[in-house]
Every structure is written in C-alpha cells, then in structure tokens.
C-alpha cells in the first residue's frame, strides 16, 4: 500500500483523471524534478554528515556533535554558511565558463538520476539502454571539471583539471568493461531487466569469479571517476591546494561539493543495481521463512542499504589510503585494471555462453 510504486501510480492515475494527458505529463515531470532536487539536497546533507562521522571515527575523534542532536544539523548549518558566503569570481577568470562549470557538474549528476531504480517499479525513466546511458552521461562530468580548471585562470586549477581529464578518461574504460560483464550475463542494457535477472540471486553470488573481479574493478574505477581519495588527484590538497575548485567559493563551491557526493551516490547505486541486485531482497536458496522475512523489508530500504554500504566502502578507502601519484594512477589503469578487466570480460563471455553461471 505504502510502497513507492503504489504512491507514484496513485498520483499518476489521479493526475490523468483530473487533467488531460499532456498536462498530467507536464505536472508529473515537474513533480519528478522537484523530487530529484529534494533528494539531492537530502543526499548532500546526509552524505556530508556521514563522511564526517566515518572520518572522525576512523581517526579516533568524535566528529560533529555541536549543532542539533548528535550533530545532525551540522551539514544544514554548513549549507547556510555556504549560501550566505560571497560567491567570488576572480578578475582574470573567464566569467561565463567559470560560473557555468558548477551548474554543468550539477546537471550531469541530475541526468544520471533518471534510469536508477530506487524501489520496485519505481524509476524515473525505464530506458532500454539504461547502462549505456549512465556510462555515457557520467563522462560529461569531466567537461565541467576541465571548464572550471581552465576558466579559473589559476595554475593549480589548470593542473588539477588536466589531471582529472587524464584520469576520468582512462578510468571510464575499466568501469565500462566491468559493467559490460554484467551486461553479457544478463543480455540486456535495461536496468529493470538486469534487476529482474537477479531475482534468483545477486550477480555477485551467481556470477562466479569474473563478477567478483569486475566488482572490485568497478569499485576502484568509480572511486577514481568520482575523484575520491586515493584518486583525488584533481583536488590533491597537499599538492594543488584544492585543485580545480581552488578559486570557487560560496554556493558555486557548494555545487561542486554536492555534485561530488551525488556522483558517489549514483555510481554506488549503479554498483548496487548491477552487482548486488538493486532493490532485490537478500534470499538464501530454499529457506522459505527467511526469504519471506526478507521480502517484508521494503524494496527501497534494500536499495538504499546496499548503496550506502558501497558508499561506506568508498569512504573507508578515502580515510585509509594515501594518494597515488599521477603516473602511478595511469599505470594502475593501463597496466593492471584494463588488462585484467579485458581478460575478465573474455572469461565472463565464455561462462555466459557455456551457461556455467547459476
């Protein structure tokens, strides 16, 4: 009754009864937009707080605990601070591109939200090439970073942007190849189909070693793609002060900051969808009772739980490892991840053709 899909279809039906289909469509789009922006804001608040807490606990600190109960309002206070801050544009900067860049970063993050299935039958756009769409659109992120770096007219920014360009372009490859492993197994690019194919077991359990390897590679590659430590060369605080967003302040900086977290959320959502079964509950073989209990947990909770687990893993990376150097970063991709994932794709194809997977 209260599942997200029921609510959405109820709204859909009511709108269609009240208005003519075109208006209903427009209103629905409007609602979807508001919902996405609302989700963005919420995710930004939650993820920033989560990151700070994870970092604090790993660093034997307490973390934010002053604003609100248990410091829950800390990120809200930060947002207010960023909102009222002066958004400066440097004198020598290319003003148009400088101001455009954070919005592009944000738009890319928003576009990526479209094909993600948040719960059972709850998806903005069930695209038949959903996976391809995600990999394609996420590459546009690099444009905003390059734009920010170039337009800032700052040497640190430029270096950060150039590093990030090299990095994202290379890591696209292994991220794409590891996604392809799942596509090969499923035989579909449609995200809903991929999730349905996992109704009798998640791919990470069904797919033998190739999926395990591609899962690891996927996590590493998306960490690099989202410019998170240990691959945060575009920011590289101790080398480039703040990398591509050195010159940004106030809300423009906040948009970059938010976009980074949203991107982390999205890639983790994709990871959860492809490898951990999206909203599919956890089932064990023939344990009927156990499986039924699992089914009672709402599908949206399953989805967010898995996603946040992956986000936690990525945060765990960040607060444990030192940063790589730019040449080592590219070595890792071209000498290790890419050959391994290519070989892995071959293996996966063979297994898929021979039907050795469960």
């Amino acid at each position, binding site marked *: 009754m209260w599942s997200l899909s029921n609510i959405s279809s109820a709204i859909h039906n009511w709108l269609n009864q009240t208005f003519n289909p075109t208006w209903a469509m427009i209103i629905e789009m409007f609602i979807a937009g508001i919902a996405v922006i609302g989700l963005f804001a919420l995710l930004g608040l939650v993820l920033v707080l989560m990151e700070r807490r*994870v970092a604090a*606990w*790993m*660093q*034997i*600190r*307490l973390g934010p605990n002053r604003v609100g109960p248990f410091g829950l309002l800390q990120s809200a206070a930060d947002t207010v601070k960023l909102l009222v801050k002066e958004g400066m544009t440097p004198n020598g900067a290319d003003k148009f591109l400088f101001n455009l860049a954070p919005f592009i970063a944000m738009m890319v993050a928003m576009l990526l939200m479209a094909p993600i299935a948040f719960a059972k039958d709850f998806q903005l756009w069930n695209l038949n090439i959903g996976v391809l769409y995600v990999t394609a659109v996420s590459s546009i992120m690099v444009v905003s970073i390059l734009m920010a770096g170039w337009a800032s007219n700052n040497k640190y920014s430029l270096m950060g942007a150039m590093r990030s360009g090299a990095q994202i372009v290379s890591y696209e490859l292994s991220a794409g190849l590891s996604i392809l492993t799942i596509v090969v197994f499923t035989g579909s690019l449609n995200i809903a189909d991929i999730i349905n194919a996992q109704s009798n077991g998640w791919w990470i359990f069904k797919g033998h070693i190739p999926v395990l390897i591609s899962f690891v590679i996927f996590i590493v590659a998306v960490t690099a793609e989202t410019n998170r430590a240990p691959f945060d060369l575009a920011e590289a605080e101790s080398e480039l002060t703040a990398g591509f967003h050195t010159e940004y302040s106030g809300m423009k900086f906040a948009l970059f900051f938010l976009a980074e977290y949203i991107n982390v959320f999205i890639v983790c959502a994709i990871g959860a969808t492809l490898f951990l079964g999206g909203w599919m509950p956890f089932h064990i073989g023939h344990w009927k009772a156990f499986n039924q209990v699992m089914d009672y947990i709402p599908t949206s909770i399953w989805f967010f739980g898995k996603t946040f687990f992956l986000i936690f893993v990525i945060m*765990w*990376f960040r*607060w*444990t*490892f030192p940063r790589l150097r730019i040449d080592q970063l590219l070595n890792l991709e071209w000498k*290790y991840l890419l050959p*391994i994932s290519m070989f892995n794709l071959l293996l996966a194809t063979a297994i898929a053709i021979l039907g050795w997977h469960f």
Partner: protein
Amino acid sequence: MFIVNYIKEVFGAIKSLLIGMRRTGYYFTHHKEIITEQYPDNRNTLVMADRFKGEVVLTHDEQNEHACTGCTACELACPNATIKIVTKFDITPEGKKKKAIDKFVYHLELCTMCNLCIVACPTDAIKMAQTFEHSVYDRNELIKILNKPDSKIRAGIE
C-alpha cells in the same frame, strides 16, 4: 614467470591495502578508543598540571600581604621586559624611609612563560598560576598590576 609474478604482485598489493583497512575499520567500530577532549564542556573537571606556566602572579596571604621587596631581580631576569616594578618609599613606624613596591606591572602580552623571573625571585614572592584562558578583547587588559590595592609587604622579609 611473468604472469605468476604479476598475479603475486596484485594479490600482495590488495593484501597490504586490506591490512590498512582492517586497522581503520577497527577504530571505526571501537569507540572506546576515541581520545577527543570536549574542552569547553569539561572545564569543571579539567585539571591542569601543577607546574603549568600560565601567568605570573604575586601571592597574597589573608592579611593582604605579599613578599615582594621590590628588588627588581625579576625585572632584570626577564628577557622581554615583561615586568616593570615601580617603587615608592614607605615611612616605617620608626620614621625611617623604606623602599617598597608601588606597582608591580606585568605585561602578559609580552610574556613567554620562560619561568626565569620565578627562579630569580629571592623571596619567592611571585609564582606561575595555572590559568590559561587569557583571551581578551582589548590588548590593554593584558597589562596587569599584580599587587592588590593596599597590600603590604609581609613582616620579616628583607
């Protein structure tokens, strides 16, 4: 064998990373290890070390008497001209003139807490206090006069 070495290298690398993650994971789950001191909240229970050098004070007893003879040993010992002693001449009951301090001026803003004045004092009149919250809005508030009004030198101290 190239391939064997390659695979060994990869697994060795992953193992070393996992060891590090185990360590941070341990601290993530063991909150008893947290060492944060919540400073302004624990003000009531905070105990400073008894030798902590916070600021120079002139000790007064209950009769509002101190032990400073105004010999300026501390003034000479100070590397930064933190202490300035202004003397005056008291008239003793016998009608003699006697040197005594008028003002013991102490510039906290110049003080580096080097403890040399305390060591130099022949009568142990001054000592280091354990206060440390010295922030004020006006720099002039840091110029302190250490002898309390109407205080006198303790009898028997030369």
